[in-house]
């Protein structure tokens, strides 16, 4: 029995470093509120790309546009996976099929189901059998479930969820539930994984654990990660590239070292420094 995994959790066939997700000139308005204004950014295959910014900067709105929950009034979002998919016109379920998976800021798991059941649900988009063959269960549906379970078990192994496999999600700690949510998104075998504040509300130790798992997902499974996060320390430590939003605009974009020394970013985060007259 070899220890290496048999399933590839990365749903993208692109070369590492190739442009995968392209957000081009996107604007989103709610009535008179401009949530996003001419936002453009590019995500490369195999990278951890962080989107940061103060509260209300438009980070979650941007993620919602990518996953199809919001329709921007202007601009395009394209995903390169097999062929080029335009995401701004598509339904969320279709976008998920194309390989965009996400986790939510507030945990959106089925609390009365076990960890295993939640993860198996992540395989839903890959299930091929209809209600009738599933009702019969034996034969094709059973074989399919075994096949999907193998992949789910590799996710359990990767994220070290073994001890909680058969526990109800609602009874697990907050940090653990966040990890389960990451696992469910991973079960889709995504081309891009969108994580909305995966470390919000965690203590230092839980944050470190989560950062480890995000790195594992990225390095071991090769999955591209787009990450919204408030904790600057974590962002600068684990990201390959950082985009900074403020009031719906991109104010900086680059590698962590460039971004953290950018005056516009410092201003957005710390306020303007008064110069002595």
């Amino acid at each position, binding site marked *: *029995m*070899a*220890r*290496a995994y048999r399933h590839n959790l990365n749903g993208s066939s692109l070369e590492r470093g190739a442009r995968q997700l392209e957000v081009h000139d996107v604007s989103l308005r709610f009535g008179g509120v401009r949530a996003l204004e001419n936002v453009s950014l590019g995500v490369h295959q195999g990278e951890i790309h962080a989107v940061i910014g103060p509260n209300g900067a438009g980070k979650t709105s941007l993620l919602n546009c990518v996953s199809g929950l919001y329709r921007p009034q202007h601009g395009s979002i394209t995903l390169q996976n097999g062929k080029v998919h335009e995401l701004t016109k598509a339904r969320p379920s279709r976008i998920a099929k194309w390989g965009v998976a996400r986790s939510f800021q507030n945990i959106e798991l089925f609390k009365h189901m076990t960890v295993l059941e939640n993860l198996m649900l992540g395989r839903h988009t890959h299930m091929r059998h209809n209600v009738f063959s599933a009702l019969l269960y034996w034969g094709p549906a059973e074989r399919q479930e075994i096949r999907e*379970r*193998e992949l789910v*078990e*590799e996710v*359990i*192994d990767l994220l*070290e969820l*073994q*001890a909680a*496999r058969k526990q109800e999600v609602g009874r697990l700690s907050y940090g653990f539930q966040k990890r389960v949510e990451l696992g469910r998104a991973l079960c889709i075998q995504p081309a891009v994984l969108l994580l909305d504040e995966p470390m919000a509300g965690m203590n230092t130790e839980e944050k470190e654990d989560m950062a480890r798992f995000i790195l*594992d997902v990225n*390095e*071991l499974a090769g999955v591209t990660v787009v990450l919204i996060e408030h904790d600057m320390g974590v962002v600068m430590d684990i990201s390959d590239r950082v985009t900074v939003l403020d009031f719906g605009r991109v104010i900086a974009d680059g590698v962590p070292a460039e971004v953290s020394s950018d005056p516009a970013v410092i201003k957005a985060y710390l306020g303007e420094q008064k110069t002595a007259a």
Partner: protein
Amino acid sequence: MDEATFPKLLAALAERHGDRRVALQEKRFGIWQPITWGEHHRRVRAFAHGLATLGFARGETLAILGDNRPEWVISELAAQSLGGRSVGLYPDGVVDEIHHVLDHAGVRIVVCEDQEQVDKLIALREGGRLQTVEHIVSYDPRGLARYAVDLLVQFDELERRGAELEAERPGWLDGEVAAGRASDTAILCTTSGTTGKPKLAMLSHDNLLTMGSNLMSIDPIDRDDEYVSFLPLAWIGEQMIALACGLQAGFTLSFPEDAATVRSDMREIGPRLMFSPPRIWESLLSTVQVRLSDAGWLKRRVFAAGQAIGTRAADRRLAGRRLGPALSLGHAVAELVALRPVRNQLGLTRVRRAYTGGAPLGPDVFRFFHSIGVNLKQIYGQTEICGIAVMHTDDAVRFNTVGVGIPGTDVEIGEGSEILLRSPAVFSGYYRNEEATAEALRDGWLHTGDAGYLDDDGHLVVIDRAKDVMEAADGTVFSPAFIENKLKFSPYVDEAVVFGGGDRPHVAAMVAIDMETVGTWAEKRKLSYTTYTDLAQKPEVYSLVAEAVARANDDLPEAMRIQRFVLLHKQLDADDEELTRTRKVRRGTIATRYGGIIRALYGDDDSVTISSVVAYQDGTQATREISLRIASTNGATSSERELVGAQR
């Protein structure tokens, strides 16, 4: 079998059982993944050839560093197949400990598990301290794909290369295995090292196998005795059951999925044989205690009644008397409603024999397991005599003794009450340490350094390490470990260190609380706390522990009762060298590190201020002043405590 060795026994088992019986199984991906005896043998052969391609030669030492996995056992047997030996390292060991063993044993090839262990070796190499090591073999490739370390080779890659070599020279390995002698060193086993750096005991195939067969001559083990291997294979106890007995009995070894799933994996297997050090039994007991305190009153009553009957029945049985009709009936009911369900929760339903060893276990813990129907027996031995020399026989389990010598073992009491042992399982010496060897081995007798005596029935009673035995103010000789075990019966006490004797006027204790149980206790009482230190210093927690201290004082003679105690601001940790890797207290380190606290225990103040150095991960250090309370119990027993409480 002439000149029996581990590899020869493996070959015989593979021939007998082929692919019909399972030798090893590891739980992965939620299911038990079996390896049959045939496949086990094939993999050992392939890996042995793989080691040969790296130039592994007769008499060489292979180091193995990782958690219990099939690859661990395969590596050991492969090294032995080539006439070499293995030395196991504790997977939680820090780099200094690993360096000491690798350097001392002159290891050229290290088999290690995963990225975590490889990183330790790389850290040693970057510090220029990995002089002897030429190859690192890793069996978990996760995270290593981008490691550009020239020493590193993957386990399955080496197996593949080995299989190629095997095809080139068929039959070569059979010759190598046949050349193995029973007197060859099979393993270098680290001693626990309560006093200093661990020494490496040389144990031969003959030592280990004789010990195994002597043990099995009184406690038969057969191929259906499933065994779950979750304690470090670097420890003699695990080597002894998993390999020395396992290869003779031919049972299936099961490796749990993860450290966190041991309990549930064990329930799935339902082992019939168990061997664990006291801390495992103590933690099983606290699980029961904690779950009972969470249960409703009905369950608590039922269990208390059932356990009372169980205790009476066990006491009768152990005294060699019959139960009588009333107790038999009562016991049958208790078994059904209280005892069996608890055993089931602990995964002990099918256990025929359970052993504890490595350190003394408190009599209260013993009595508990017998009351719920677990046949728990004490084993006494040392690494130097392959772990088992003296133990309880089925018909004579007495909580205060460690039993009688197993067949082939002579027990004598030497100068200064020192226990002396002689048997074919006694080691040939410490590796490259003649001075220590000469001290331990004199005229064929192993000088254990433990103090003890033989009681009227010839049962051995172990007092403690000879140098730890203390003499109280009134001249009574006592063992600090005995008192410590009394304290550790409380689920709230994680570790305890007892002082006294010499010019100290009374007995005092340093206690580290159990964060989990005390934390739950505090939450239930709406007691808020932040850190371990904060929790430990709550007056409420002091009274909680004072109860445990009073209960321990109950059975102790006056001069041995604990008068003052302190709750430590941190748990004792093997990483801080306060415990050995097998979790034995290192009294020397503790005496120097906590000198201030110990002085205060014998002073008059009711608090002591110490400075604690905190090392942050970025390498900076900060010193904090911490004030610890000291509680005086004046040796009160629990009845006296109640009295005081009533008077208030």
